[in-house]
């Protein structure tokens, strides 16, 4: 058992890499205003101009990688919640910075 452990590579390099990525982000966010909450507010304001949705049916996910960060916004919209001139055909709206896709599902 102990002999076996000697040949297993340690987890310290992983700890080190995770910390470096995390702290690079945390240090920059100490000086910058909270980017995520600004994005959240502005994106929701734009969408809210056209369709009505419940704020607690919004999911925002941020996944920080070493070189790329992806932001995914997932909003559940009840049928027939149209505001203004857009047809209420979105049942689910997903904005994803990684693929910059906007899923459109026909109700």
């Amino acid at each position: 058992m102990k002999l076996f452990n000697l040949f297993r590579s340690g987890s310290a390099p992983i700890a080190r890499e995770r910390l470096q990525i995390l702290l690079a982000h945390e240090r920059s966010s100490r000086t910058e205003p909270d980017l995520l909450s600004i994005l959240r507010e502005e994106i929701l304001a734009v969408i809210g101009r056209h369709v009505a949705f419940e704020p607690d049916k919004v999911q925002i996910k941020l996944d920080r990688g070493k070189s790329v960060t992806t932001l995914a916004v997932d909003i559940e919209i009840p049928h027939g919640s149209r505001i203004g001139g857009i047809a209420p055909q979105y049942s689910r709206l997903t904005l994803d910075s990684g693929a910059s896709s906007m899923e459109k599902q026909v109700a």
Partner: protein
Amino acid sequence: MSERTSARVVVVTSGKGGVGKTTSTAAIGAALARLGDKVVVVDFDVGLRNLDLVLGAERRVVFDLINVINGVAKLPQALIRDKRLENLYLLPASQTRDKDALTEEGVGKVIAELREKFDWIVCDSPAGIERGATLAMRHADTAIIVTNPEVSSVRDSDRIIGLLDAKTEKAERGECVDKHLLITRYHPWRAARGEMLSIDDVLEILSVPLLGIIPESEEVLRASNLGSPVTINAALSAPARAYFDATRRLKGEQIAMEVPSDSRGLFTKLFGRKAA
């Protein structure tokens, strides 16, 4: 007694709890006193005081920091003189009062008064980043950041370093708190096997100069059990020597850094982990 130049206010801080702030405050405070300086250790952990216990003075507490701030007691009435080292004093925290009783103005007055009487004022910060922690670092000239080579401790230390650079009096004057890293609970054999962040990893991530490396040791636990800092109780043990070296570096001496090594025999290395 040493010539009274200007007093130095040191905060012992970490963000994370349980990394060894109180133990280190007691050990370094006692080491400074043994090296001839006049020292007061101040407990800022209102409601959860423990520095009195680690110093073996728990039954001698009458007045505390908040009593002094509120004017219930004068500072000399609240200071407890160590029974072993005549140069070492404790200003305990209150165990019962609300921590809102710590006011910035009150703490400032107490620290100013202590500066008149002592060479070193060593402030034991509570864990976290709330009022007690920010007030403990508020007037510091020097900070000792206690870190374990472990991810959550390193992350919290980084956060504390950010606060030291922003929320202290020195930072607000455009100066910089003199920061030192004290790595505690270091397991040489774990680091050697790549199971624990190495000293170099921690230093590279935090970019703060190293004050010392304290090896994990049963002597530290024993010292707390007995209420006698390891630098008094077992002055020749590995952790005590590491604390004395760190203390000398704090005083400005140049001392080569000794990385604790794995001193166990081959047999223990392969078949047991008990020895430390």
